[in-house]
């Protein structure tokens, strides 16, 4: 396979994953703002931060009010991570790798772009927001479904999956990192209703509130949340889950090509650090430090994969 094609697949699926994650972040922020208006602006700012576009946002806007943030994250073409930008990015990459995709995957991607371009052609009003966010998630789910249902399990699939899980791991780690202080034990807030809402928001950002309640009989506490999102291999958005998948797919590539690279070692190191860790140990050494290190490793892995598989000339 061409290095360019591998890169195109990787980015196509990173972007699709990002569109879904951004929709989820906006949804969590919107819900938070509905339930408690006092600190709404802080909440919206942390949403912007989590999306990793703080500087770009502040260059255009003074205040993080709901309409500004929502518009910036969903529609603003000057924000390279807005849903509209990444869906276009995904589709452009899909065009680039058209020969590697089944007709179903290509059409789902094209349809995703056509539909969302239309849905996001004008600013989204509050009462349309839930529907629009659902549409964004549904469209990327359709592409994923076509991928699962129609593609060969070969190198093409591997690069698509690696892109998906690198992006997802980055997103989950960022959600936790922006809110890490909410999860730290603090005399002032413990047990207050404020904490509860914040914790719910974290779970909601990864669509895990219901699963968490089922597994924990409704007992929401910060360590439990951190453990769930970092270490639980059953949760498809946890760091451990994402790295299990990344390591698997990289191993398939190594077996296929009969060649291991630096990226394999990095992925396996990160994975073993996640497997052999406990939430207590993470908190003892510092949650923020742990997440910060993880985000850096994750970025480094991305760059190694680019080089090892010759995405660019």
């Amino acid at each position: 396979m061409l290095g360019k094609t591998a890169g195109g697949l990787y980015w196509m699926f990173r972007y699709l994953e990002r569109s879904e994650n951004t929709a989820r972040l906006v949804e969590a922020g919107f819900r938070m703002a509905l339930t408690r208006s006092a600190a709404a602006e802080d909440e919206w700012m942390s949403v912007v931060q989590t999306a990793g576009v703080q500087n770009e946002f502040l260059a255009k806007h003074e205040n993080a009010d709901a309409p500004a943030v929502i518009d910036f994250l969903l529609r603003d073409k000057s924000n390279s991570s807005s849903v509209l930008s990444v869906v276009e990015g995904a589709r452009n990459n899909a065009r680039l790798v058209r020969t590697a995709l089944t007709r179903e995957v290509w059409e789902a991607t094209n349809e995703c772009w056509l539909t969302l371009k239309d849905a996001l052609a004008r600013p989204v009003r509050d009462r349309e927001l839930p529907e629009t966010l659902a549409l964004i998630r549904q469209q990327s789910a359709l592409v994923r479904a076509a991928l699962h249902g129609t593609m060969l399990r070969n190198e093409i699939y591997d690069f698509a999956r690696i892109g998906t899980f690198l992006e997802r791991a980055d997103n989950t780690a960022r959600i936790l990192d922006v809110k890490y202080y909410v999860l730290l034990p603090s005399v002032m807030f413990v047990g207050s209703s404020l904490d509860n809402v914040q914790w719910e928001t974290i779970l909601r950002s990864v669509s895990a509130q219901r699963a968490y309640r089922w597994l924990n009989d409704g007992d929401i506490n910060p360590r439990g949340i951190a453990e769930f999102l970092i270490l639980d291999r059953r949760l498809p958005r946890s760091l451990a889950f994402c790295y299990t998948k990344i390591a698997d797919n990289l191993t398939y590539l190594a077996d296929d090509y009969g060649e291991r690279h630096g990226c394999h070692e990095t992925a396996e190191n990160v994975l073993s650090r996640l497997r052999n860790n406990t939430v207590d140990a993470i908190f003892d050494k510092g949650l923020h430090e742990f997440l910060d290190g993880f985000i850096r490793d994750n970025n480094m892995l991305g760059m190694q994969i680019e080089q090892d598989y010759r995405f660019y000339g």
Partner: protein
Amino acid sequence: MERTEGIFDEMLGGDDRPRSPYRQYHDWFVAEDTARLTRKSKEAETFFRRTGITFNVYGQEEAAERLIPFDIVPRVISGREWARLSRGIEQRVRAINAFLYDIYHRQEILRAGRIPVELIASNDAFLPQMIGVQPPGNIYTHIVGTDIVRTGEDQFYVLEDNARTPSGVSYMLENRETMLQMFPELFANIRVQPVSDYPKNLRRSLGACAPAACSGKPVVAVLTPGIHNSAYFEHAFLADQMGAELVEGHDLRVVDGRIAMRTTRGYTPIDVIYRRVDDDFLDPLNFNPQSMLGVPGIMDVYRAGAITIANAPGTGIADDKAIYSYMPDIVEFYTGETAILKNVPTWRCSEDDSLAYVLEHLDELVVKEVHGSGGYGMLVGPAASKREIAAFREKLKARPGNYIAQPTLSLSTVPILTKKGLAPRHVDLRPFVLVSPQGINITPGGLTRVALKKGSLVVNSSQGGGTKDTWVLEE
């Protein structure tokens, strides 16, 4: 259906009874509910948009991707008509290849005085870098799209020989696919020759032209300028259908005297490049040094016989509009036969007598730029305003050598489906020809382009033309 006086309609001919190739289709059409057909027509558009069968329009920011309008009424050609057409096309394509070989080697045709030397020497389409080069299999034009127009029952003319990188074949294939999906009952009853073998034949034909350096199964790649090119969809489509890699210049480099592509596992050699990049951009070391689309050094590899480039660089000299007027001589010179397909009479404005005549008759003629394509920069006299003609006259006088003129042909019409039912519109035809040392293969039919505006003679998609499925009936 409304009729236009003096114009040959391929469905209804001279009277109101359908011509024989159209009889079965016409019976079916008359029995159909027009509302259902209109609905089908909308469905086709949705299908094209969803599938992404679009072309990019240069110089337009928004809506940069457009659909080529598709008309659901097929253009039908009888097996007998096609047999004659394809014989004529084959003859012409053979002559073109022989001409190219000659013009880049001994230049017998110039020595014989059949073509003026200046026409070649001063022509930008002539590539001195190709002189003495032996292309693998001695094939220059692996893929040709011969544009043909019709003016009557037996009158066919070749309008252009597209011998560089003819496009449109993906539309031929997708149009048929769409028709098969929408109207399976038609194909059950009418025996239409299939076109779906084209990608397989293209792959085989290109493979048969692999250079001697190739051992084993030839590796074929399609070279595209990238996703912003107007025909990108077609490049991706053909690569996909052939199971070939779709590469851009920056995916390729010269490795150990061969052209190799960067894969996830290192550089792998390629044997045949089906390039959809113009000559000028092919190799910044040998041609345009600014080009980012090509591969530095590919011409040196080519001259050493280690890569096949399809079509060969320099084929433009054969479809140049100034050369066009000599095609009957070229066919005769190399095949010893009279050309089966006629040329449109052409005035070369470089010649004083011709120029004088053309300036006299601008309002009756079609004047084209010698090096132009895509219907840009041409004057359609009868459709032009006085002011347009006056402006064109100045351009023509300033650079007469840059233009040729032809009579406005009464192009045949084929009906399209409009809100008010069938209406005649002018069409042309681009059959697709594959050439390899194993022989010449012409896909039955080709791409029918149709001018959607009433009375318009310009069928180019960049100027609002549409397409139709083209049926060649089994005999």
